């Protein structure tokens, strides 16, 4: 059957189809992540290639094995496992031991995604779920950002401790952090690619960032100071989280209203974690907690039925 026939076949709804497939979308997101990935590899050295490869390959392997063992259709072809693996790798410190990568891939694919029914059924972002699992389980490895001869605190932790940081280096990516989060520039290039293709829209990242900035200005204790705002936005995983994790199709609301609420919730939670919690970073916890609220948000902001007209107030006047 050719494509035209496919479009014309008689089936139940949805009737309007286009050429986007899961595989295509996932491939585009992987391409969009390439600038950040390549920058991470260039910045942190060749060992990060091993980290990324091991995480991606073990994610695909666990997806394959799980589906093979349970005699389910094999879905490694849709690239979602590869994307989850890549996102997880970008959330790892540059000198993470490889066995932690394997455990992380197992948690992301089997525990968070497949046990709940596979792609489309996962209740939170698999990569971030696994990251939080690892941060809680192997805190000393996951917060050790030392590489080569560099060691010390991440810029976000320095800001929290009241030290000064170089915001220009933070935007370009010449700093400590996880493999994928360091260069804001590379992430924004990838995000622009996705926005131009129409794969993600700006609702969630936009409301997220704006809410966070407002929250920071009110509660951050520094007032409206561009230096600190830039530092907070460019530091840590906020940009990577806002553009690539929070916009995950499965674990974010589908309506505009729902997305705005989701973004605001993300901004407030991130602010709360960064300002009031003991740690410096809170993006991953903010996103997975907000993921859990998505079913509630969608109940409050449901999809409008096709052809539904809101009844006029005061009843029918005739």
């Amino acid at each position, binding site marked *: 059957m050719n494509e035209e026939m496919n479009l014309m076949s008689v089936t139940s709804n949805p009737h309007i189809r286009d050429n986007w497939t899961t595989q295509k979308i996932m491939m585009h997101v992987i391409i969009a992540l390439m600038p950040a990935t390549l920058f991470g590899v260039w910045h942190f050295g060749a060992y990060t290639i091993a980290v990324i490869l091991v995480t991606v390959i073990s994610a695909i392997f666990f997806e394959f094995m799980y589906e093979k063992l349970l005699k389910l259709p094999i879905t490694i072809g849709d690239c979602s496992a590869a994307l989850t693996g890549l996102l997880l790798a970008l959330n790892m410190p540059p000198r993470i031991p490889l*066995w932690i990568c394997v*455990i992380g891939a197992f948690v992301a694919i089997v*525990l968070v995604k497949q046990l709940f029914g596979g792609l489309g059924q996962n209740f939170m972002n698999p990569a971030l779920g696994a990251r939080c699992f*690892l941060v*809680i*389980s*192997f805190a000393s490895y996951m917060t050790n950002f030392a590489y080569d001869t560099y060691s010390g605190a991440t810029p976000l932790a320095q800001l929290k401790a009241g030290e000064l940081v170089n915001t220009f280096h933070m935007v370009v990516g010449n700093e400590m952090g996880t493999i994928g989060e360091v260069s804001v520039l590379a992430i924004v290039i990838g995000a622009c690619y996705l926005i131009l293709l129409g794969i993600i829209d700006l609702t969630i990242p936009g409301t997220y960032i704006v809410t966070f900035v407002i929250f920071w200005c009110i509660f951050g204790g520094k007032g409206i100071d561009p230096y600190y705002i830039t530092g907070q936005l460019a530091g840590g995983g906020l940009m990577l989280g806002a553009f690539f994790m929070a916009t995950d199709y499965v674990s974010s609301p589908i309506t505009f209203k729902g997305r705005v609420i989701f973004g605001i919730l993300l901004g407030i939670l991130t602010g709360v974690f960064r300002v009031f919690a003991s740690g410096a970073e809170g993006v991953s916890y903010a996103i997975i907690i907000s993921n859990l609220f998505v079913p509630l948000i969608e109940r409050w902001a449901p999809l409008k039925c096709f052809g539904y007209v809101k009844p006029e107030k005061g009843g029918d006047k005739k």
Partner: protein
Amino acid sequence: MNLEKNTPLERLYNGIVKENPTLVIVLGMCPTLAVTTSAMNGIGMGLSTTVVLALANLFISLLRNVIPDDIRIPSFIVIIASFVTMVDMLMQAYTPELYKSLGIYIPLIVVNCIIFGRAEAYAYKNKPLASFFDGIGMGLGFTASITVIGFVRELIGSGAVFGHTVGNLPDYSPTIFVMAPGAFMVLATLITIRAYIINRIEEKSGVRLAVTHTDEEGANCSACAFRDNCAGKFEKVEKMMAEKEKEKEGKA
């Protein structure tokens, strides 16, 4: 297994396998999730609950004709609380270390759902001997389940077996397993494994091992949303078995 109802042996089997309080009825989740950070804690908690459960069941059953219906719950609490206080003091005297690590959860046995559940559902309606063994069976079922949960969590989360570390395993242990999320993961996995094994045995042998309730027993099965997974499923298996036998007969 076809055992005569309300005999000691049947009660033990019922508590440990058929209606295991942790893995089947899913009662008493508070101690199950909170104290099972090690296998030793699981055994300690399980056995102290078993003692309270057996004695409370026995005395509630003995007093069942004296206790007025309207105030049965307060009466149960008084009986249960007396035994819990005894166990609490005995443990404080003879096993101070275990007592320390279980902490508040020993006094909290008073409000354990399993004990209340058995008092209300069984001991209040049945004879003392059967009630006593019902308590022991339920208690041992509880002990076995939470010991296994504790063992798995201790092994994965802190790389130790009964407090003895295994080589350099602790360096590779995801500590999340000795925290709250690990308890939920291990409990869910165990429930799944138990259901899987029981289902396989049932399908192979055609003998019902898990809970069978029918409307005649007052369980109101026909109104239950899970009928197809519970009682209805067994009916399907029975039908399958009958068809298979028919086929065999036909061939012969």
